[in-house]
């Protein structure tokens, strides 16, 4: 009987860990669907482990106008990745919440030119992000303002 109870407890443990809802952390305010200023794409930011990632979930022009096929990451410097679909592509990577509504240590990828930039994300208000991509030092960068999206 004791062995059965022990076994049962151990079997249930993973489900307890998986399904219990931990209290939201301050950094989780980044989670959601956001629109960059160009409006050509929408990016879903989610938390994986203790870091934050953002992937393209919608494209205003999903297909290549010349071939009619879904757009791929054709400008990627790694030739092997040039056939990866843009929809679903993870362009924000490895962000950690550093307090003061700022997420750091991550990178942003620009599919238009295949470049990856250092990046810092700042939550300006509940529905506005400053996404600053930069080269080496923050002064050599550009800030794009992203807006939070929700169901109409």
């Amino acid at each position, binding site marked *: 009987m004791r*062995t059965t109870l022990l*076994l049962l407890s*151990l*079997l249930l*443990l*993973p489900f307890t*860990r*998986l399904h219990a809802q931990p209290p939201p952390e301050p950094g989780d305010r980044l989670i959601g*669907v956001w*629109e960059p*200023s*160009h*409006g*050509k794409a*929408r990016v*879903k930011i989610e938390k*994986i*482990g203790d870091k934050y*990632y953002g*992937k393209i*979930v*919608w494209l205003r022009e999903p297909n290549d*106008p*010349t071939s009619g096929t879904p757009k791929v990451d054709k*400008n990627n*410097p790694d030739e092997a990745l040039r056939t*990866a*679909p843009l*929809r*679903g*592509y*993870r362009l924000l990577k490895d962000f950690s919440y550093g307090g003061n509504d700022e997420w750091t240590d991550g990178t942003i990828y*620009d599919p*238009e*030119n*295949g*470049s990856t*930039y250092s990046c810092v994300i700042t939550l300006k*208000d*509940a*529905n*506005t992000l*400053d996404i*600053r*991509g*930069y*080269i080496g030092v923050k*002064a*050599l*960068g*550009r*800030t*794009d*303002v992203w*807006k*939070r*999206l*929700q*169901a*109409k």
Partner: protein
Amino acid sequence: MHLRHLLLSALLLPLLTWAQPDTIPATDEEDYSQYGDLGFADDKARRFCSQKILDQSPTRFISVMWDAQGSYHLRFSPRGSWAEDAGPPTAEQGRATYTGGLRMQANIPVVSRNSIIWQVGATYWDTRYAIDDRVETLESAGLMHQLADRGLRTTGLNTTLFKPLNETQFLIVQASADLSGDYFLDAPQGLQYLRGSVAALWGRRPHDRLQWGVGLSRTYRVGSVNFIPVLMYNYTAANRKWGTEVLLPARAHYRRTFSARSLLLTGYELEGQSYRIQGLSTDANSFEVRRGELRLRAEYQRQLKGFVWMSVQAGYRHDWSFNADELPGGKEFFRGFFGDQPFAMLNSLGGAPYAQVGVHLVSP
């Protein structure tokens, strides 16, 4: 035994669940159709048009270039008061065997938001001359000596404001203040000789591949101050293989895009400044060479690594103006295309091939 295996599996399961793969898969079983029908969470949020179009040549943060012209003939008149069609005698002539030097530019965004972009930049151009076979008459003003001994320099500050009005309309205001002359950096000329240029433009960006605009400018592009209309037309073809980058009358280029990392521009650019020659100036006047050049050219740009790009430019430099003016008290005056104010010198330069190489740090 069976029970032991089950127990071990149960113990390991949580660890497997929480382990993160080294590479997170980019695709998953997401239902992407749900993201099409979303709206801004903030009712007041607006969309603004972007500053650039697709495939436009990269914006440069920092540029270091070397510019050199081939051999050409120079002919200068005596100093005096000459109508443009006067046909004065030649007082100095020679052959420039080298004209060129270092050019550095920096352009840093100070404010970069969707609703406004404000950039501030700095420029330093150095032009040195090597002149052989010099022949001078007694009437020579000595300009050729001044050029050979001291060269010409431009140091300037500039600022650009891009203000999108909505998703398709925008304003651009650009201003610069340049100190041009034969000074050296350790003894620059007075700030009263700063020359200002400004341009204001209203434009439309109907889609991601087209941007056009019209406006007015006060410019030194052809050497002396002028007020002229400007026309912008930046376009990328639907096949993304070619386009135009046009800001008339300053420059116009056809762009051939080979990839996101290499492109070729062919077209022209007008360059010019008003250069104060210290040795020919006094407190009562400023003697200024109105240097204007038309450069017909091709420029190949290519990514070297990451954000570092290179450019190689070659073409033909046509002399638009190398005449000189006396400016009483250093005060600028407007001659325009139709003014009949006399020149202090009427000079001519032969055309010359030229080349320029550069390394650039480009903007995200």
